[in-house]
């Protein structure tokens, strides 16, 4: 019990060691989900579970899709800049 509380306390007191790698960009996904949830919770006039989930999923996919497009464009620019 005490050990569990200690581990729980450590969870909030020490920052996580996140490596500087391309995979760390996956941490954007929970933020995109939060933005989708809040935006649709505000925007929709009535909250019906099926429609709400569908709308949130659609917005989430749209945001992630545009992020991927932006990442590809930036990667292309960086690649071209590296060749010069």
């Amino acid at each position, binding site marked *: 019990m005490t050990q569990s509380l200690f581990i729980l306390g450590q969870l909030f007191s020490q*920052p996580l060691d996140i490596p500087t790698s391309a995979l760390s960009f996956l941490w954007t996904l929970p933020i995109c989900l939060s933005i989708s949830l809040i935006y649709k919770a505000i925007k929709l006039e*009535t909250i019906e579970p099926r429609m709400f989930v569908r709308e949130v999923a659609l917005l989430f996919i749209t945001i992630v899709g545009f992020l991927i497009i932006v990442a590809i464009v930036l990667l292309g620019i960086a690649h071209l800049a590296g060749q010069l």
Partner: protein
Amino acid sequence: MAKSGSTATDPKTPFIAGILSWLVPGAGHYYLGQRARGAIIFFTICNTFLLGVILGGKEMIDPHHAKAWFCAQALTGTPALIGALAQNSQYSINGIYGRGVDWGQVYAGVAGLLNLLCILDVVMHRALPLPSKKIPPERNKPS
């Protein structure tokens, strides 16, 4: 448009709803009778903020070294105030840095800005009475 019935005409309601929405995310919507919306907002914003604290540790809520981030984080209300009060004084001189702290600040900051969106929604959209639709006067067609 879904509005709460009796609260829509009360002039004090938007102010109270806004304050409640700032103190506890989603409480303003709950106060206006929109419980499902309030619950979604509460769990989403609190979980985003909590994930930020897990990523960056409680010291990433730093009113001294990360003032801009703290302004955004403070918009979550009670969670940010608790975090600011739980600061460890040993970090108050140099601050705390790292990739986890960066992500934590982004998460908590985004949570605060999303709550600002909810506060504006509850004050300017949900709590105010519906604007009456203006019917344009019929123009007499030239005979």
